[in-house]
């Protein structure tokens, strides 16, 4: 369960890895592969070098031991030859009683010729009595020869030569001096007074000769060492002989003594080591080379550091190469990406076209795509502007026939009633009205002109309605010079008459009042009537459903006015209806206060607000809101 959680945890780490930049990804992949390859190469190189170094060390050790073994064998052969020379040339040829002096001379000759390697030559009879010795030194009072190991061995196996382990020579009195020797003893037949008898010939080899040979091969103190033991594992020479005797150190010589010649692996006292065994002929002694594994490791010290150094340097070099390669690969893509990002941020950079053929092609495609997108966008904007314009034109065209119909109807009525002055007034008002309506094709006019237009309209209507209501204009002079979309008051006034004061009697005091003011950078024009008013529900329909309340009016309704305001100034502007049944209705028009100039007029007519925003942008922002 715990394992499963752990796996999930690691998987989460992997899945949580966020996409990185292209250059870092390339760099990371290249670096990972480089590091893996370097590590594998390094480890393989180290293993190979260490294996060959180990083999080489073992080979050289074997060679050294072979050489040392041969030297030792030569030495021991020469010792045996000394023994043979004394036995066959001196002892066998002479009688101890008759030619004692010859025996002594013969032994002396042999001793003198080999005294660098031997300590003494001595002959003992059956009873352990000294028959002759060279050099001539005082024998100890009671050396107890027959109980000494070399004597016992020689007596036990008369036909063989016997090599002892190193020991102190306990035979002669050399005043405070004791000698370490290895005894070569053999049973001999000697003649004393014509009587043949057995005895023991002893050649005491100087131990220092053996130890010198061993010291030579042990000279290199590197942890690797060589020792010599006999066939029973008794140590003859060891670099740590006394440490072994004192229990400070130990050696598995018993095991080596039974091994045949060869290389062995062993685990001794918590340490792995190689054992190389070489048997010394005739004696059965074993020359043993010991190479602890720590020596191999120690010898690999420099190689190990060298390989680590090599890996680090190669890693540095590969890091630089990886960097160059990843930059070369990713740079054109990054430049392309940056130019695309700039484009997305609203700038109009040239799309980067460079690098390899594929990336150039990609850049070129993107460039062309963006150009096409720009073109399409421009086309859409134009189409949108055209559409809005046509809508506006359509709205305006909706107004003109209605009004014209009503006005002409009133004039007809006046002419029929021979009210010529009134008809003239009516026609002059109508002329003013149309002059403003036309406004040389402009759709944006001053508020003053709009008020004038409203005044003309209401004068016409008042005649038509026989002055059953009054019309009051109360607009701040300051707002007269501001921009407005033309013909926005007229439909509202028309509604005020149709649904408000139109149906009232003259004595009921119907009134339509137009007010105007600037407030917080906005123009608020209100048309208030004290007519019938309407319920809240009906009022809410006025701006949402243009087809609903057209029973008596022009049919244009307030919806069109509201749409026009919003088309020119934005969704946040437009109409507000406040009405109470039997109290009247107030319709407020709200739009931004913009001073009328030719430039502002053009901007508004082109669908751009004064802040520099395009109509498209304006609509976009509104949609977000």
């Amino acid at each position, binding site marked *: 369960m715990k394992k499963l959680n752990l796996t999930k945890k690691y998987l989460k780490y992997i899945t949580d890895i966020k996409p990185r930049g292209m250059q870092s990804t390339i*760099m990371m992949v290249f670096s990972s592969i480089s590091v893996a390859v370097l590590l594998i190469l390094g480890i393989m190189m180290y293993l190979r070098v260490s294996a060959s170094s180990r083999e080489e060390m073992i080979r050289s050790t074997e060679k050294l031991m072979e050489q040392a073994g041969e030297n030792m064998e030569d030495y021991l052969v020469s010792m045996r030859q000394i023994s043979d020379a004394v036995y066959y040339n001196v002892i066998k040829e002479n009688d101890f009683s008759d030619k004692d002096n010859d025996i002594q001379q013969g032994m002396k000759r042999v001793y003198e010729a080999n005294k660098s390697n031997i300590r003494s030559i001595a002959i003992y009879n059956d009873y352990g009595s000294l028959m002759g010795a060279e050099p001539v030194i005082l024998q100890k009072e009671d050396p107890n020869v027959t109980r000494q190991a070399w004597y016992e061995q020689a007596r036990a196996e008369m036909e063989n030569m016997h090599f002892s382990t190193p020991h102190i020579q306990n035979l002669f009195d050399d005043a405070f001096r004791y000698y370490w020797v290895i005894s070569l003893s053999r049973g001999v037949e000697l003649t004393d007074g014509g009587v043949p008898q057995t005895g023991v010939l002893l050649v005491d080899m100087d131990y220092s000769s053996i130890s010198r040979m061993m010291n030579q091969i042990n000279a290199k103190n590197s942890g690797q060492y060589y020792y010599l033991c006999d066939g029973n594992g008794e140590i003859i020479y060891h670099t740590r002989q006394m*440490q072994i005797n004192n229990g400070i150190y130990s050696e598995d010589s018993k095991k080596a003594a039974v091994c045949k010649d060869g290389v062995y692996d062993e685990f001794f006292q918590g340490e792995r080591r190689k054992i190389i065994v070489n048997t010394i002929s005739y004696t059965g002694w074993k020359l043993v080379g010991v190479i602890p594994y720590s020596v191999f490791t120690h010898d690999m010290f420099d190689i190990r*550091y060298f390989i680590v150094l090599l890996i680090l340097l190669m890693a540095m070099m590969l890091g630089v190469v990886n960097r160059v390669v990843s930059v070369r690969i990713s740079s054109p893509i990054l430049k392309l990406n940056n130019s695309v990002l700039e484009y997305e941020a609203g700038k109009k950079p040239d799309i980067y076209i460079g690098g390899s053929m594929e990336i150039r092609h990609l850049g070129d495609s993107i460039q062309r795509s963006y150009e096409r997108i720009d073109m399409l966008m421009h086309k859409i904007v134009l189409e949108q502007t055209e559409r809005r314009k046509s809508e506006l034109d359509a709205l305006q065209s909706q107004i003109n026939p209605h009004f014209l119909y009503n006005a002409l109807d009133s004039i007809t009525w006046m002419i029929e009633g021979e009210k010529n002055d009134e008809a003239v007034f009516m026609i002059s008002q109508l002329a003013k009205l149309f002059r403003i309506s036309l406004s040389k094709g402009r759709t944006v006019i001053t508020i003053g002109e709009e008020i004038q237009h409203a005044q003309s309209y209401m004068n016409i209507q008042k005649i038509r309605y026989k002055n059953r209501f009054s019309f009051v204009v109360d607009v701040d002079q300051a707002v007269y010079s501001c921009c407005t979309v033309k013909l926005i008051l007229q439909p509202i006034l028309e509604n005020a008459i149709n649904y408000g004061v139109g149906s009232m009697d003259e004595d009921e005091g119907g009134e339509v009042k137009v007010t105007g003011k600037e407030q917080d950078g906005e123009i608020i024009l209100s048309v208030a009537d004290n007519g019938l008013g309407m319920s809240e529900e009906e009022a809410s329909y006025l701006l949402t459903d243009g087809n609903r309340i057209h029973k008596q009016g022009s049919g244009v309704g307030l919806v069109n006015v509201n749409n026009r305001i919003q088309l020119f100034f934005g969704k946040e502007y437009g109409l507000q209806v406040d009405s109470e049944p039997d109290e009247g209705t107030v319709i407020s028009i709200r739009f931004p206060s913009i001073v009328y100039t030719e430039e502002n007029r053009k901007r508004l007519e082109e669908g751009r607000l004064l802040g520099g925003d395009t109509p498209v942008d304006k609509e976009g922002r509104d949609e977000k809101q």
Partner: protein
Amino acid sequence: MKSNKNMFILTEAVLAVLVIITAAAMFLGRSTHGRGRVAVIVRNSDESRWAAFKYGLRMAAQDKEIELFVVSMGEDLTAEEEEKAIEREIANGADAVIVQPAPGKDTGKMLKKMRKKIPVLLVEYPASGEETAEDIPTVQPDNYALGQALAKELLKDYNEKVEGKTMGIISEYGASAASLERKRGVTSVLKDMGVKAVWEVSDLSGEDGNTVLERKSKVDFVIALDDYSLVMSGKAAAAKNLHGALVYGIGNSMEAIYCLDTDYARCLVVPDDFDMGYQSLAETAESFGFIFKKPKNRIVSFTVMRKQDLFSKENQEILFTMSQ
């Protein structure tokens, strides 16, 4: 882009640092030779009685990869000479010194002073004097036990019937802590046995021991408390100047062995000087590089030798160390 560049520079910098560290480690590893240099200052350092001790030092130096230097000192070693010798060895680059304290009350004070400069380890016996710093580590035989063992061997030879026997006690430097302890050990065993110490020679330095002993009155046995006095007694016995006294002694030289081998000494107690040498250097070496690891006091063993078992396998191992 910038963070990539920074990461690249950081990685290269880390690798460069690793290269420098590895190269430095490689060269430092090559130039390391051993773990230190130890100087050994003992009286009469060229005498054969130090053979086993020096062999032990050599073996430990080989095992512990220590550079060893045994200072050649004369017979009459004083505290001042010893101080000069230590100062000289410090100047020569010694990292520690192994010292046999010179006789005299000032030695302890001097060694305590020296110990502030360099690790000091004593051998054979502690320094004497009121100022002796008990915390100076010492590798030594149990000198009191040596004396006791010698006296017990004597009693064994006489089946403890030594009532009315006389003895003479001889030591090279009777004032040394070793001699005092050994003497205390001998007398502690013999005090109720009726043995009378007729004379005592406590300073053989600069004198012919043979003549000194010849002048002494006849005793049944001579107790030699150190190697020098044992060899002197043996030589006196060989020259028949000891008036037939049997020599029991403590020694650790081939001369002492010869005295035993030739019956000029009856019994020999041999301290394990090889072990003393090995342990002293090993203890010193162990403290190298470890501030909180101080050398400890060590007691080495001893062996009782008689002529009949002088060349036994075990004794030959001891003789081997003496003959190196």
